[in-house]
């Protein structure tokens, strides 16, 4: 394949710690390596900042996600690959084929570290290849190779083949990011998997890579990563690590695992059942809770992320029964259990893990996959579709065998699976007959992580609503900071005092009830949105930021300053977070999203919960409107339209974006 060029660095000073950028054009086969522009690095930090800015600059509203004009930007943060607490994250950004706007997903593991050690921090993939190819990156070099023999294989097989082919003596040194069948067949919610168990999901990058005929990216790197001020950096790492470990002690073990013990009837963590129709999951205890999961644990981690002191990738192995031989990483992770076990009603953990494994092998986003399956099940329950429509599958709640067959059909786009592969919103348009009512999606993406806004924690839920990419709150409020933990509460949070006061010091509300009031939530959500954005830009996991709120702007500024040698203050870190969040918002605004899209599916406003401890709960349109008003006001956006304002954008140093949006009429007053 054609050559690899290195463009010389310009005379401007390079910022310490950033690897090179790779511009890969699959249409022409040209690959150019160059230094990352220092102004770009300073202004947009890395990771999500890089990805969203490049997407904003190059992919406009007229670009179809599957056209060669769409791009995939894979970006490490400056702290990715260092020994900073959870410094392992890589952001994959593209235009999402499912939602048609921002697709931005974050992945961990060691793939990003290998990329950094190979000398690169940013890969921008444009164009489209004619025949399947894969990208081979190894210590400063990069080339496109034929992937004919890999096409059609699942992600595990692709990784094994490439590892043994590229480094037969030491296969584990090769790290592979690959797409599976789902990506090849352009399933709109396909994702790219790396290190077998990690994926940058919720962005459709797998499908976009499939449309570009890019099967995999295999990386091996042996370079060293050094901070500009090593001693200062080490000090900052140790301080942050000690806090993360101390916080880990007071929150449930195994990542977020034990929450699944709290699912109904009297727990604090409710799990939507049957596509959000109810909150009651009969027989949860003993089938899907964390205590049951513990029986399958092997006591070791599977593929935990690089440099993580609080790993959540507990391994489980099913030794007997129908699913003997199924292994699960992150076995306790509630997301998977709540999505498959709650939304689809599957009542056995081994079956849930099998579903997860299938998702990993096909390269499917498990949350969207569970979302479309639950959607189809509800249509079946309401007799909108028949057994015949569903290719003979009995889509009753909890029918695990039907679910697995349906997933196979989705990944291969066969029969009814071809309809569901379009995502639930598009599928509803194809099916018609009033099925739109049962699409549980925000901004076009299926909702995940089972919290029902009718009864759930308010801080968590508001993040769901305001998230630019839609469908979840993983980039904003996916955490524990609104759940009272007496041993680790606001006195230990790394948070500015004024925000703390507004968000947590609410007259007449006890700290233990803080999650059930909307008061103060806009401040809380704004703070954590900016902070999570910064974590994603720096290449740090959000777990020590929000799940156990131990790290904050003080730690980020220390780590970033010591690593790059650019002095920053905690205030600047928060401001940068706000700026990068505004870039995301600007992108979706240009795509035509407004305040109208900051809304939940109709069900939450019209159907009160039919049973359970929160029977009768409903979301009030009026109350939500008030909360959103306050949120927009805090952000400095226009209340009427929910759009950015010129004043705000200019103050964040995004004057060029303000100019463009202004000309398009996409700015608020």
């Amino acid at each position: 394949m054609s050559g690899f060029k290195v463009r010389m660095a310009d005379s401007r000073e390079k910022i310490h710690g950033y690897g090179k950028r790779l511009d890969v054009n699959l249409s022409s086969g040209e690959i150019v390596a160059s230094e990352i522009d220092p102004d770009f690095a300073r202004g947009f930090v890395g990771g999500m900042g890089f990805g969203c800015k490049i997407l904003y600059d190059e992919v406009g509203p007229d670009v179809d996600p599957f056209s060669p004009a769409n791009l995939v930007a894979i970006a490490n943060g400056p702290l990715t690959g260092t020994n900073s607490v959870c410094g392992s994250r890589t952001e994959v950004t593209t235009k999402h084929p499912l939602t048609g706007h921002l697709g931005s997903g974050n992945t961990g593991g060691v793939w990003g570290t290998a990329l950094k050690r190979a000398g690169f921090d940013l890969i921008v993939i444009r164009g489209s290849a004619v025949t399947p190819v894969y990208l081979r990156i190894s210590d400063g070099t990069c080339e496109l190779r034929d992937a004919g023999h890999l096409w059609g294989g699942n992600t595990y097989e692709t990784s094994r083949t490439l590892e043994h082919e590229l480094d037969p003596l030491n296969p584990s040194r090769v790290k592979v990011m690959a797409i599976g069948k789902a990506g090849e067949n352009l399933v709109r919610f396909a994702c790219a998997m790396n290190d077998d168990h990690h994926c940058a999901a919720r962005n459709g990058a797998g499908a976009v890579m499939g449309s570009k005929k890019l099967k995999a990216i295999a990386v091996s790197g042996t370079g060293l990563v050094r901070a500009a001020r090593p001693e200062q950096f080490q000090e900052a790492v140790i301080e942050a690590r000690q806090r993360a470990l101390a916080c880990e002690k007071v929150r449930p073990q195994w990542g977020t695992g034990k929450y699944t013990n709290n699912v109904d009837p009297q727990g604090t963590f409710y799990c939507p059942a049957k596509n959000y129709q109810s909150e009651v999951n009969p027989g949860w205890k003993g089938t899907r809770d964390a205590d049951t999961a513990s029986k399958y644990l092997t006591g070791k981690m599977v593929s935990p992320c690089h440099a993580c002191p609080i790993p959540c990738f507990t391994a489980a192995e099913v030794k007997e029964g129908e699913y003997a031989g199924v292994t699960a990483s992150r076995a306790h992770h509630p997301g998977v259990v709540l999505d498959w076990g709650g939304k689809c009603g599957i009542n056995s953990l081994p079956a849930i893990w099998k579903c997860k494994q299938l998702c990993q092998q096909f390269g499917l986003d498990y949350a969207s996959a569970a979302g479309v399956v639950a959607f189809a099940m509800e249509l079946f329950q309401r007799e909108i579709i028949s057994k015949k429509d569903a290719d003979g599958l009995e889509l009753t709640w909890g029918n695990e065998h039907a679910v697995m067959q349906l997933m196979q059909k989705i990944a291969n786009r066969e029969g009814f699976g071809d309809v569901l592969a379009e995502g639930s919103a598009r599928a509803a348009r194809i099916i018609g007959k009033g099925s739109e009512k049962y699409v549980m999606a925000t901004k076009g993406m299926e909702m995940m992580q089972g919290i029902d806004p009718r009864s759930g924690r308010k801080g968590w839920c508001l993040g769901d609503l305001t998230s630019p990419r839609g469908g979840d709150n993983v980039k904003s409020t996916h955490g524990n900071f609104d759940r009272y933990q007496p041993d680790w509460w606001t006195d230990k949070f790394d948070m500015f005092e004024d925000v703390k006061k507004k968000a947590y010091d609410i007259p007449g509300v006890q700290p233990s009830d803080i999650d059930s009031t909307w008061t103060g939530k806009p401040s809380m959500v704004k703070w954590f949105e900016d902070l999570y954005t910064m974590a994603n830009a720096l290449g740090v996991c959000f777990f020590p930021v929000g799940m156990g709120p131990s790290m904050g702007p003080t730690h980020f500024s220390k780590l970033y300053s010591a690593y790059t040698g650019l002095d920053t203050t905690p205030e600047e870190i928060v401001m940068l977070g706000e700026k990068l969040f505004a870039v995301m918002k600007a992108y979706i605004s240009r795509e035509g999203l407004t305040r109208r899209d900051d809304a939940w599916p109709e069900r939450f406003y019209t159907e009160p919960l039919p049973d359970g401890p929160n029977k009768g709960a409903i979301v009030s349109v009026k109350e939500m409107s008030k909360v959103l008003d306050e949120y927009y006001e805090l952000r400095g956006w226009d209340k009427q339209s929910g759009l950015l304002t010129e004043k705000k954008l200019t103050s964040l140093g995004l004057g060029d974006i303000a100019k463009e949006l202004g000309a398009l009429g996409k700015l608020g007053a």
Partner: protein
Amino acid sequence: MRLGMVIDLKRCMGCYGCQMSCKAEHGTPPGVFFARLLKRETGKYPDLRRILLPVLCNHCTDAPCVKVCPTAASHYAEHGIVDIDPDKCVGCRACMMACPYNNRYFHDEKRNYFGDAGPTPYEVARTQRHPVGTVMKCNFCRPRLAEGKEPACVANCAARARTFGDLDDANSDISRLIRERTSFTLHPEAGTGPNVHYLE
């Protein structure tokens, strides 16, 4: 007492005896070699030279891997030996990132030498020491030291290029060799204080 090793590059003939004996002693999985031999050619014909460099964990006095380990699995054992406690290791691989010598390995999946034929009894016995999901490396053959034996690579070096001993004892063979001959360590710029020395 600070244990260390000296490798005489004049004596080393590149027979891979160290690599093989280490493999036999530790029963490492396929592709993993705690003691490796690097071979490289330099110069241009006819002035060619082959460089042999046996490498292993340097058991650094100021070990970056120990510093970065989030769970204290990498630690200083007796006499300055750097070892990993597999029970504490969570497999985050920060140490592999920090090690300037690339002498650490991650055991990511169980593999055996004969594929589908399954592991040999020998492999079953030895690989138990290396749980999947943990990082592994040379430990100067601590179990052998406890029995009063030298590390396997030292005992099996046919050219007697390797000397093992106490670097704190000025009268030990190893200290004498370092003193009397021209010696160097790898990557001195990393400031790790390696305890494996090479004689030119």
